[in-house]
């Protein structure tokens, strides 16, 4: 289950962060997302370590905490997408699929002429769309 998704701007400021959990650990998820930016930085600054992922937007699993797995995605405009999931067994394809759909939603949201680039995304439509994407995570492939 996806517990948190976030879009983080160029200055590492949160553009959109939403947790999908009933538990009271939303703040902890904020911490996890924030910490994962360090890994993104590391991956981006030392691309040779990640070898084949060069020039790819999908950054793969960033780091495992004891309960969560964190995945990252970097757009061309240096906007980072972070996904936190509690699933133990996650297929890369699912995550990639999720990110590409999330990216599309993000692009649509920032293409809104009333949106100022670099500011938080407050669009309710975007939030609904993200919720749908989160809900359908993993469904397409598992059946």
């Amino acid at each position, binding site marked *: 289950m996806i517990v948190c998704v976030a879009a983080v701007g160029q*200055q590492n400021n949160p553009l959109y962060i939403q947790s999908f959990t009933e538990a009271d650990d*939303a*703040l902890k998820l904020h911490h996890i997302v924030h910490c994962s930016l360090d*890994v993104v930085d590391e991956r981006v600054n030392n691309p040779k370590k990640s070898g084949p992922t060069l020039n790819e937007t999908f950054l793969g699993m960033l780091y495992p905490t004891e309960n969560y797995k964190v995945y990252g995605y970097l757009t061309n405009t240096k906007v980072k997408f972070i996904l936190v999931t509690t699933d133990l067994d996650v297929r890369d394809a699912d995550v990639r699929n999720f990110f590409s759909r999330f990216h599309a939603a993000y692009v649509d949201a920032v293409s809104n002429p009333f949106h100022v680039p670099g500011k938080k995304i407050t669009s309710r439509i975007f939030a609904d769309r993200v919720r749908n994407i989160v809900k359908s995570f993993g469904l397409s492939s598992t059946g």
Partner: protein
Amino acid sequence: MEDFPEELRRPPVALAALVGCPELHAPITTHLLAEQPPINALALPDISKISLFARIPKESSAPARPVGGILKRDWLFKHRTRIPAVVAALFSSDQISGEPAQWLQVCNDLENLKGVTKGRNIKLVVAVVTQSNSKDEISEDRMIALRKRAEVDSKYIIIFIPDDPLELKQSLNRLRNTLGELANTYYKDEGRRVKARIDRKNLSSIELHIRYCFKVAVYAEFRRDWAEGLRIYEEAYHAVREMVGSSTRLPPIQRLVEIKTVAEQLNFKISTLLMHSGKLAEAIIWFRRHMGAYRRLVGAPDANFLHWEWLSRQFLVFAELLESSSAAVQNTSSATSGTADKLTEWEFYPAYYYQSAAQYLKEKSSCLELALSMSENADEIDGSNESVTTSVYVGQFAKLLEHGGAFTMQLLTDEEFVRHALAEGKRFQDSFEIIALLKRSFEAYNKHKTLRMASYCGFQMAREYFAINDFGNAKQVLDNVANLYRQEGWVALLWEILGYLRECSRKIGSVKDFVEHSLEMAALPVSITTDAQFFKDCGPAGSPSLPQREMIQKEVFGVFRGESEIALNEENNPLKVTDDHPLYLEIDLVSPLRVVLLASVAFHEQIVKPGRPTMITVSLLTQLPLNVEIDQLEIQFNQTECSFIIVNGQRPQLAAISHVQPGRRVETAPALEIVTNKWMRLTYDIKSEQSGKLECMYVIARIGPHSTICCRAESPASMNDLPLWKFEDRVETIPTKDPALALSGQKAIQVEEPDPQVDLKLGSSGPALVGENFIVPVTVISKGHSVHAGELKINLVDTRGGGLLSPRDVEPFSTENLHVELVGVSGQEWEDQSESPSDSIRKIQPSFGLISVPVLSEGKSWSCKLEIRWNRPKPIMLYVSLGYSPYSSETSSQKVHVHKNLEIEGKTALIISHRYMLPFRQDPLLPSMTKATGDPDLTPILPLKERSILIVGAKNCSEVPLRLLSISIESETGGICTVSQKVEDPMEPALIVPGEEFKKIFSIIPEVNLANLNIGTVCLRWRRNSGSEEESGSCSTVAEVLTKLRLPDVSVEQPPIIVNIKCPAHAILGNPFTFSIRIHNQTKLLQEIKYSLADSQSFVLSGSHNDTIFVLPKSEHILNFKLVPLASGSQQLPRATVTSVRYTAAFQPSISASTVFVFPSKPHFELSNTEDTRVRSVTL
């Protein structure tokens, strides 16, 4: 890692024992340890001590007895330190080859040894210690007998020679090799023996299986067979994992504890082995599996803290292993090698494991607290159960019971065990441990420059400090962390941290910090849409939400107004803002409190005259959720007299109390209330008397009697975005009504100088002439201001750019280099003679001058003259600026400046030209002249000791008439050349109008034959025509100017032949006259001369037309022709051509030289001085 026993932490080392010859034990032990692989040695001084190794017979080997545990606690220790793999028996050669009684003793000892070693399969080596000189003395028979007695292979009988260094070394090596080989054999045999038991598969319990596996692995480690050891350890580990569900031997809690403890040891062994063999990635994957297998085995809820503690220890130990493993850095490249178990970078950092260890320890701490509070008789749980101790099995505890002096172990019930564990847990302060772990992690992350991870660790650390009431440390850490969150705009995280900081400040008793943190929290962009309901564990501040912000703001403003106080913990007095403790906050350009109050100040103009009013707009913005009412607003400028105060009209009585300085301007505004995210704009006019910069420095808001917020003023044009709010989607407004002003407004304005009321006049008298001291009169006329401390600055600037100096002016000033220079200031005329010029400043430099001007009262004037000399023609710009102070008082340093400039062109007055000529109709043959004809640049050649004529011309190229006083040639070298003036002093000072040229003739006779003859310098004395006095009144005394021109050098040559043509000045029609050509040979050689004469139609000629003649050395030859003119008027004489054969030079007189005027009849005038036709003074 320190929790593990020593024998587990270090890889096992083979153990050997030495008996006999105790004096040799020390060198042997050292040697065995020093070599690779090392061997530990037990030195037994006496052979009787060998019985220590003997196997203690088990009392009852009944198979039905259940297995008490998995691993025996002291088994490993025993094999590392007490049970040797091999025994070396040392006998001296005397004993063997000596008396039969000694031999008997040897045999006896050997029997004893064998008795012990056989029981344990310990190997035996016999070393015969002998002296180097007697090594062959032992008989062969005795050696064979010894071998048979000892029942060892012959190669295990060693001759040991201690007294020769070389031999000793060889002996030691021999002994070492043998011992190593035998120890290996021993451990292999033992391993195989135990392995055989496993393979038989008829083991009664799984515990035994694990125990045997462990043993086999340890034996393999003894042999340094790491791969085998690893494999068997893994087998044991898996077996342990299988036990989890199946074992029923112990009560459930203790059972789990035992399993975990054993698993922990096995895991430690495996991790160590993997890491030491450089398989870092595999070690990490192994550890991950280990965690996966055990993480969820929490166990019974009342002892779950044990699980978390165990888990934390796993991470800590692994972190330490990782840290100590040198391979940790290089091997990260293998991160991507595994496909299924993809590792991330973070798992290679020990910091990650430290952090996890801290997290689990925190979990343990909270579970322990819960467990303690649950147990009803918590107070009774203390250290009284000292009788509980560790049992003989790893991971088990037992009760020590005393039965009349004898102790027996008894198993614990789970309840007893939990009580014991709780008592143990109470003894430790977990917080310090957690902080220590987090600090290690924090430092490691910081070293890696992973600031966010470090911040998270720091935050957890601070929370732990907070929990143990160490607020100082907590605050320090949190302050750092908060900066990162502020910078990156993580509002929810910042909120949490600020909440802690606020509480820390409250507990420390720092009102200022408390207020600052509260204000920042209240102004955080916590949006309404944030899912506040999910933020539950948000620290002391509660969840971030708008109502919470409003509450905080209310609380703080209560403090501001002194109405409420900050409640502290009991022991401190509640803090309140009072007279004694005023509150002063400062908000600068980088302060996070800019969101609380932002002051933007804009002048409506950029420049203003002194004393003129201009408008200023002060705009204030706040992001606090509730409206902010300010009692008093003070606007401070760098010119303090401009500062003013705005008082809130609604609260006059409150405002009255405040700190109004007498004489300060006070304005009253109808209301001073700032609405959230809406600029409050206040526009006032302002007037400055002082010229210079007027800048708004601070906007100070006073709320309540003792609280002040001092905001640094910001210009709208260069205002930064609000921190945090810049990421928010909000309505942004501009600080001023005028959008243009919002873009360009500045908080500073330039106040101009007052208008000067003094005239500065520069008199000009047309172009300056090169060489003269050009006079520029400067007049200062006061027209309203009196002049005090006046200063006149004079600057000469080249109008075409470039300096006034010649290009080569790098060297220090020398007057020749200067094109134009300020020579001096003359004629300073004081109208008021009483003013002494003693205090006047005078500073004159070639292109700069500074003159002080005396005090002038209104209406008076003062003037001086600048003398400027042009050395080269060049236009310049003359800048004169007068700085003065209109008031005599010293204090007002306000100076008024008047600037004037004048372009002056410097022109050359006279152009001097010169020309050399030969006397009329006299031509010397100059051979070098004939060679190089047609070269205009050729230096003129003058004939030696012959008269030449020099014409010097002076042309007036200025625009004013000049009076020429004299022209002369000053010869620098006397005697080598005679220069004489033709006419003595023919003229009055000659007036030359512009464009006119004056010429003067000199005759020159070179006396010395020189290639470069210096003729001299033309000196021209002139002055401006004094008739022009009226035009420039100041030029009353026109100075003479001397212009000099050095004549170029000429060359002198001895002419070999001189040709003179003689002819009367005029002829009369029909009257014959004589035309003669005189050829003078000046050489000592005979000269062959050819001549020819062309007929002229105007004359009848008598004489030969062509001939060749010879002129004798140093003599003259004259060719005479008689001519009768046939036509009147200016007539061409027959052209004569004279050719010198020797010099191949032909001469033909010029047209002018061969022209004669023929009168039709004899004219009626006296023909006098006709003999002097050859040389005439000519004015052309």
